[in-house]
């Protein structure tokens, strides 16, 4: 399941799974639905959404010390699902709940790719 997710992310696409029986969506993807079925199919999730909550982390765990301070955020995507990631390229002072954001892939090392949020540029 992770291979497909990672390959799609390299192309900037966010893939989740949807239950064939009840239609419930899962992002990040998983193979078991709460309704009891384990028959799922892939769907492409929207990469745009709104900032649902965020926090500036100034006291990181040991493994994240070199990245601090950083901002962790939860975004509510256009299909009402939510996702957690860091939000980058932004000053914490400009943030407020409801700002439009989009998901971007970020290659953090040769063999690791993650997704992050960025603020949506407002059209001028």
């Amino acid at each position, binding site marked *: 399941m992770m291979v497909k997710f990672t390959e799609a992310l390299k192309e900037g696409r966010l893939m989740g799974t949807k239950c064939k029986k009840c239609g419930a969506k899962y992002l990040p993807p998983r193979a078991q639905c709460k309704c009891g079925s384990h028959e799922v199919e892939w769907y492409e999730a929207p990469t745009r959404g709104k900032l649902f*909550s965020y926090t500036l*982390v100034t006291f990181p765990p040991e493994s994240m010390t070199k990245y601090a301070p950083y901002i962790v955020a939860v975004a509510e995507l256009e299909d009402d699902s939510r996702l*957690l990631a860091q939000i980058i390229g932004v000053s914490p002072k400009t943030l407020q709940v409801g700002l439009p954001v989009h998901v971007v892939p970020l290659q953090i090392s040769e063999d690791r790719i993650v997704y992050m949020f960025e603020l949506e540029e407002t059209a001028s």
Partner: protein
Amino acid sequence: MFFTQHFTTSINNYLSFYSEERKCSCLTQKVGVVGIGHAKFGKRNDATIRELAHEAVIPALEDAGISTADIDASVIGVACDPLAAQISPGALIHDYVGLGNKPMFRVEAACATGSAGVRVAWSLIRAGLAEVVMVIGAETMTHVGTSVATEWMARACDTRWEYPFGVTFPGSYALMALRHMHEFGTTRVQLSMVSVKSHKYGVMNPYAHMQKEVTLEEAMNSVPICQPLNLYDCCLISDGAAAVILASEEKARKISDTPVWITGLGSASDTMMISERSSLTSLTATKLAAEQAYKMAGVSPNDIDVACTHDCFSIAEIMSYEDLGFCKKGEGGKFIEEEQSYIGGKVPTNVDGGLKSKGHPLGATGVSMTFEITKQLRGEADKRQVSGAEIGLTHNVGETGQYCFVHIYTR
């Protein structure tokens, strides 16, 4: 020769426990707390985890007026093996406190480990598998330093999807705090009011990690950790242990003049990832567990005279007032502002200092809550006594709401 005799007697005692002659009316009997003990929470460079457990076990046995020979089984809660630097610490503690060959469970439910232990012990007695059970909760956390302890606790978040972004416990609860402020207008001041209360009562608790009052101004202006949460919004990383002895009704009445009955139990869980929660301003597991416990005990939130709720962060206590039904949704900030959770208020909450100033040695906390409520219902809480307390509640949450146990106690 001596060893063989001792061993044979021990086995015979063990087997007779399960003999057909032994009547089991366990399914209708109550289960009560008959002995309680508590170690000093804090930065305990002077004691290892086994010694902290022992420090709690001795007074618990003395309180009950029994010895280890009278214990049928132990349930031991330690949340984090790496922090104890001991894999499977249950066996270590059981052995050190002198419980020999008796059956022993080790339980883990993150920060709700202690209450998970109480629930398991209650179940063993009710199932007729034991009559007197010792529950021990213990943790050592301070010897590794804050950022390492934070690292281990952060790994309780989904290690594939949330931990890698550096979200930690304070981070997760900060996301909830911001959302609560956004949806209900809860204020930064109200968050700090929780800390002020916690420290006021911590000073009166000889077992508390921190025994120092704090002013509203100090709490408001302390160093930011994960905004909007600052240092005084976050519970302490502590070493400590607590022990309680549970017994079947028949045994409890023989052992104690003042058994405190656990008459309501509820337990529920929630999604691993906070991004999948139905709400960031409420813990579904709390609501479900509380509903079960109230129903089983035949009481409502209005009947609760004193409570210990899970205040890992100030926002967690505010949400607990709402999720447990002490006040309406969104009015948790008002509840603390009006001093309704102080002694004399509607539901005195965490008047032992709570996780925030009493401390939060992960595995010990739930057992410490049971200790406190038992003391209150016995009328032994001294300066922190809620007068006439007859019905108490403990609320223990694991991780960011993945585990929840609610217990209701009556005299």
